[in-house]
């Protein structure tokens, strides 16, 4: 039958690399490196991101410190909330990451990635790491604020490394979540709207600025399934002197890892839908 006809395959135009692990990592690196280069060309954006954590710690934190109504154990209230504010700033950047995915779609950048040999998983992982690079700047800002506000931060290198890792993982969870939303709602305005709808519940239904024990039962349940809670829990143990983890660091990392893996798998499936 005529229809079984297929043109003869030309020999490889360029050595066709197998889709191995090295290629996978190379592609992830390519996507993340492009983002880092953009930030190098225009670092002003990162400086503007310093405003929000500063306001929370300087204004909200100072006032709440004088209330002494929040049971924070051995920690001062500022020490207690600093990890929460770090997690919050990371969340606020990450939850709007889908906007840049929409912009890349509108500009045709995404289409070019999707017609290239990059696998969808490497693309999503590369994007998550790109978002994390931005989020890491928040870590630097909060540590600087810690110095200025006499927050009792831990300066052990291993602790700082752990904090950075938690920032990366927390950012990966929420930026990929935002990417999934972008693939479903598909417009700039809706992603912004969804981001705004999501941030407050995620922030307030967590242990970021008060302990979960203060919450009514139903809110406790929400806080316990909220990945932000585990990010804050880990940060609190690693970042401030005398800070302890409620769930254990292993659980914190495991929960964040599970959330990011699940969301990335979902995003890799949905990403191509953004261009249709």
């Amino acid at each position: 039958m005529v229809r079984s006809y297929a043109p003869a395959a030309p020999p490889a135009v360029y050595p066709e690399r197998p889709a191995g692990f090295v290629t996978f990592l190379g592609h992830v690196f390519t996507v993340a490196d492009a983002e880092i280069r953009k930030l190098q060309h225009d670092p002003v954006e990162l400086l503007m991101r310093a405003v929000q954590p500063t306001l929370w710690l300087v204004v909200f934190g100072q006032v709440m410190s004088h209330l002494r109504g929040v049971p924070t154990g051995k920690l001062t209230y500022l020490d207690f909330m600093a990890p929460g504010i770090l997690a919050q700033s990371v969340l606020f950047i990450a939850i709007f990451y889908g906007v840049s995915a929409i912009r890349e779609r509108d500009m045709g950048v995404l289409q070019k990635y999707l017609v290239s040999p990059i696998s969808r998983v490497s693309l999503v992982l590369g994007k998550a790491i790109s978002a994390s690079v931005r989020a890491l700047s928040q870590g630097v800002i909060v540590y600087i604020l810690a110095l200025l506000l006499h927050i009792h931060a831990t300066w052990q290198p291993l602790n700082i490394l752990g904090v950075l890792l938690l920032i990366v993982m927390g950012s990966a969870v929420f930026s990929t979540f935002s990417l999934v939303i972008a693939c479903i709602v598909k417009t700039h305005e809706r992603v912004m709207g969804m981001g705004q709808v999501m941030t407050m519940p995620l922030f307030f239904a967590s242990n970021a600025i008060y302990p979960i024990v203060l919450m009514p039962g139903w809110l406790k349940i929400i806080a316990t399934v909220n990945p932000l809670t585990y990010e804050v829990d880990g940060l609190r143990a690693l970042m401030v002197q005398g800070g302890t983890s409620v769930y254990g660091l292993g659980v914190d990392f495991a929960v964040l890892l599970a959330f990011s893996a699940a969301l990335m798998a979902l995003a890799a499936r949905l990403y191509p839908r953004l261009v249709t």
Partner: protein
Amino acid sequence: MTDDQAGAVLTPAIDEHPRETPAPTIRTVDLTKRFGDIVAVNEASIEVGAGEIYGLLGPNGAGKSTMIKILTTLLPLTAGQAWVAGCDVTQDPSRVRRRIGYVPQALSADGALTGYENLLVSARLYGLRAEDRSQRIAEALELVGLSDASQQLVRQYSGGMIRRLEIAQAMLHRPAVLFMDEPTVGLDPVARRAVWEHVLRLRDTFRTTMMITTHYMEEADGLCDRVAVMHLGRVAVIGTPQELKTQVGAGASMDDVFMHFTGASINESGGNYGEVLRTRRTARRLS
């Protein structure tokens, strides 16, 4: 394609053995795409030979862009079959992706990166070996006349420069087929001619098969070896620009051909809001 011709794609040499029975580089058989009730592409069958510059013409909403999206593996097809560079787009999309280049309608070069960095990203994505990269990037920049601007941020480029950069980017891995969706939309006549010259030079150097969509009839006439006029998702007619003009009547222009085969009426269903918005956005970035 025979081994000879594929070799010609790899090395910049003129093919001295004329193609006798060329296997088509792009072939679709009854290609159909439905979005719900809307039939965007309706049983389209085309064949594009190796080294050919093939134009897809037709009003907004005729199915040109959908066709390109299917052939570049961005969209799954609903029915029918399509092969690109010897691979079935449904069964072997990842291999198709390694063999094609794509210049989307929107100006897709990343404005926040330099010209060089844009090419570097592509070189890495297509697995060009690290030791070859800088030379290939330098060659590509030279080929489209952007060597001097390579360290500038792309947002400082003119529209024509961005287009040429994108063509260089899409050609970096020496694809067998280059797809371009309205490559000269919004460009001034001088920049448009420059893009045409580069397209022709690439074809002559690498024997790349090119498929372009365009609304500019002079582009179809001057640049394309053959064109397919699409209307309401169907392929209305296929031929060389000369053949089609002769078919329509003595002294006919490509404008006449276009109107003859698309009914000349304004199609209110075509060119939805999003599509027009995208074209405008591209035009704005160019001006």
